[in-house]
Every structure is written in C-alpha cells, then in structure tokens.
C-alpha cells in the first residue's frame, strides 16, 4: 500500500496523525517514516512538515532511520533489570553483533531499548515486532534469533 492509499483511509484530521504514522511505518520496508511520507502527511492534514517532524521525533516508536525487518524492543525497566535483563542483553548484542540502537548489516534486526512492556511477571521480556517473548535467557534468545534467521532464509530461497 502506498502512503497516499494509507492516508485516504483516514479522515484528514490532526487527531488521526498517530494512527496514520503507525500504519505508514508498518508498510515501509525500512520500518521507518521517510521525509517524503512526512511531506504527504503534512499536505493531507493541511499542516506544516515541521509539525509532523516534531511528532515523529517525539515518540520513541517512530523512526526516521531505516530499521531492520525485525525491530526488537528490549525491556530495560526495573523489574526486568532486577532479574538480569542486562546480562541477557549482552548476549543478545553478541549474538547480533550490534549494540543497542543499531541495525544488523543484513538489515534483519534493529535493537531498541524499551521501558516496561507490561509483562513483568514473566521477566525478562522483549518484543520482536508484534510478538512478545518472555523468561529470556541466553539459550532462549539464541533459539528465537536463529528461528527468525532460518525462517527468513527459507523465504529467500523459495
């Protein structure tokens, strides 16, 4: 779906902007919002690009930089940290060979910090796109990551 097609699904009202931005971002291959998208949103809502930039930059779920196909939101809030999230994070960084905030060179994964994801009873917790993963430890992480890698490899081959 093009950005125009997405925009037309919404009324041209400012209070619909976050919904539009979420959907635009989801449809972009880079999981991001581009300057061209921002221009189109601004035009559609009859507002300035600057004010749309302001919104995109403010919210941590929006990104202008292209991101990997899988965006990992890693919880670093108090409860997850208490049960060892930072150790798990280290092994995740090692597994992906990137640091927090970076994207793998194959554009498969982006690793982002997140505050409490609301699953503290099953800490440590992370989300990979729409999916929530619980009770993380080194072994579980490797399993999750290699599963996604394999699944992507199969898709490429077929």
């Amino acid at each position: 779906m093009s950005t125009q097609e997405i925009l037309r699904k919404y009324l041209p009202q400012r209070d619909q902007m976050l919904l539009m931005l979420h959907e635009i971002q989801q449809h972009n291959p880079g999981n991001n919002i581009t300057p061209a998208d921002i221009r189109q949103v601004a035009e559609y809502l009859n507002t300035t690009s600057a004010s749309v930039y302001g919104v995109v930059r403010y919210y941590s779920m929006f990104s202008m930089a292209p991101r990997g196909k899988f965006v990992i939101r890693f919880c670093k809030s108090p409860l997850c940290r208490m049960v060892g999230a930072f150790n798990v994070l280290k092994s995740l960084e090692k597994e992906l060979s990137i640091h927090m905030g970076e994207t793998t060179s194959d554009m498969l994964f982006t690793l982002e910090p997140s505050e409490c994801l609301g699953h503290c009873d099953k800490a440590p917790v992370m989300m990979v796109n729409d999916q929530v993963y619980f009770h993380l430890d080194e072994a579980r992480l490797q399993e999750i990551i290699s599963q996604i890698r394999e699944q992507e490899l199969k898709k490429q081959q077929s």
Partner: protein
Amino acid sequence: MIQQTKISLRNTGSIDPLSIDDYIAAGGFQAFEKALRQDPGQVISELESSGLRGRGGGGFPAGMKVKFTDKADRPFDGMKYVVCNADEGEPGTYKDRVIMEQDPHIMIEGMLIAAYAIQAQKGYIYIRGEYIDSIRKVEQALKNSYDKGYLGKDIKGSDFSLDLEVRLGAGSYLCGEELTLLESLEGKRGYPRIKPPFPANEGVFRKPTLINNVETFALMPWIISEGSEAFKAMGTEKSPGTKIFTISGDIEKPGYYEVVMGTTLRELIELAGGMKDGADFQAAILGGAAGTFVNASVLDTPMGFDTLKEVGATLGSGAVMVMDPSRSLYDMMASILDFFAHESCGKCVPCRVGTTLLVNMWKDVRQRRNGNRTEMLEKMEEEAEYMQETSLCPLGGSPIIPIRSAVQYFKNEF
C-alpha cells in the same frame, strides 16, 4: 488464606474475550441497560456514593470527577467526551492489559455508563502502541458492540448515542499523564498542559472530558448493578471496593490478583504463593517507579490509598515488585532513576537536568564519593524536592517519591 474477590476481572478466563455473546450471557450490559432506564443524575449519585477512587494511580474520587464533568458548561457544539486511559506504562503494572486482553467489553460497558451519566456523545480509548494484543481485542470488541447496537445512534431504543474509537500511543510514559494524553490524542507531541484547567472543563479539543483508567471504568458496571452500598461494604473506609495488584519479582506465582482494598502485603504475597524458594522478604516497591520502597514493617499494613500514605508509602497503580535479600537496593534505585531520566520530556529545565543529576548522584552515593552518605542522601532529597516544586508536570515531581521512601525505610542499608 485470603481469596480473590473478582469484580473487574470477574469474567477473565471464563469467557471468550472476543465474543460479545459470551459477555452478554455472563450478565454483560445489564448494568448499562439499568443505567439507561434511570435518570443520568441518579447514575452520578450512585457512582459518587460508591466512594470509587481512580485506579490509574492518583486515587481521585471517580464520582466527583463525573459530577464536575456533568456540571461543566456545554460548549457551542454541545460536545462532551469520555476518554479511557489505557496507556499503562508504570513499570510493574499490567492490570489494564489483562482487562483489555481478557474482557474488553467490560471496559466498554463502563465507558457507556459514564458517558450516559454525563451525556457525552463521543469517546476515545487511548492504548499504548506496544499493547498489540489489547489493541486488536478492543477494536474487535468495539465492532461487536456496534453490531449489537450497544454503540452508535439511539442505543437500545433510547435517545442516547455514543461513538467510541481507539487511539494509539507511540512509546511515551509521560503520555499516560492525563493532560499529556489529551495532547497526544489530538495528534500532537506529548508535552503536558498546565493545570488548571482540568479535563472536566477543558479536555480533548478543549471540551469537557471525563478521563478515567481502564480498571476504574471496568468497576462501574458492578457498582451500577449491585449498588454503591455493596461496593462500600468491601475494602477500607476511604478506599472501598477491590483492586487489582500486579505482583512480580521474587515470589512463587507472580501475576495479577484482584482482592479487596485493605488486603495486606503479607496476605497478597501469600496469595501469590509466598516468597520464591522460601526466601526472606527484603523489600517491595509499591506503585511502580513513581512508587515507594517499603520494608518488612509494612507487611501488615492494610493496603489502601490512605492507609499506605499514613506510613509514607503509596498504592499507586497497584504494582508490587518484591525483592528478596539477594537483590540490590542500589541497583533497583538506579534503574528507577534511569527510568525517569529516560522518560523526562525535557520541556522544563529542573526535570530535564534534575533527572540526570539524580542518576549521577546515586552513583556517588553508591561509590561513597563526595562526602558522607547520609549527607548525600539528604542532598538528593533536596534536589528531588526542588524538582517537585518547580517542574511543569507531575513527572518532575515523581523521583522524590521513591527517594524519600528509600531513605525512610532503608537509610542504614545505603
């Protein structure tokens, strides 16, 4: 051992969350239909006399807020709004998610009752963007409600009409603060508004708006169907009814538990299977990051808004994070201070600078730099108090809450 008393969670686990027929078969919408047969004023007095207090953290009397919004003058276009705060971001809290994922219709019914009471025509459910499952379920439940004639025009043959829509957050804790939420709902950056005016007078689009938390709305159907007296018969004098606690950390069965207000921390821990591997209790943090550290002396204090306040603790959102003696209080405080530094929106200097300053001061306390620790802790309290006095919004006033309680209960441990 105490048992759960399920009101807002009464259908969880026993019905299909996506089936409105299941919800109706379990008695759903009867409270709303009862309200619809009454005068709106009667509904307001029922909510008011129930003593229900907001479950989003502040504990403000819900009925009073309904009354204020009802009394507010209608603007030229006649609009009043109801907004459900489903931005749930307080660390350790996941009760609203449970309601939305397991029984989304109950929240909608609560919103219908409140909207009828103030004769609002339109409403929004503002859900945090990360809560994918909640978003999908609430959207489906809204669709179901329209299909069954519980939303839309002339609901169930009355002349009351209500439209509800979902709006999404996008990763900002501050947007859970009600006035900031309204800014975000309007499609703006999440910078707080100055209070007053309060939402009751100038809310979304500057129109009179009733904004409540998911759990607050989810309790309303029961209050209307069973009556305010029945509600007041539970809980403590100043905090009637039930509360969902989300308990995590070093306990056997972490999760969500709905119990009567006034339940003690000891009872709650017991209900959640006791301390993990029979360990000792060291500390709990009540109410999330903007919550309080307590030690074992609070284990037998009835948990209600006022009873906890009396001992320098908070109920907040009902988050309970339990620590056994192997856990470091230093680390815990460090992660809480990091949280505020990360979530400060930076609009005002005291909070932007202060939240980072506190992170660094805490490192000094820990490494015993810059003088003696008692003095350092006092200095931190001073800084955090200054932030509270000079910040634009309540986030800047939040760090003092955990700091003061940590000093009160654990001074000798640092």
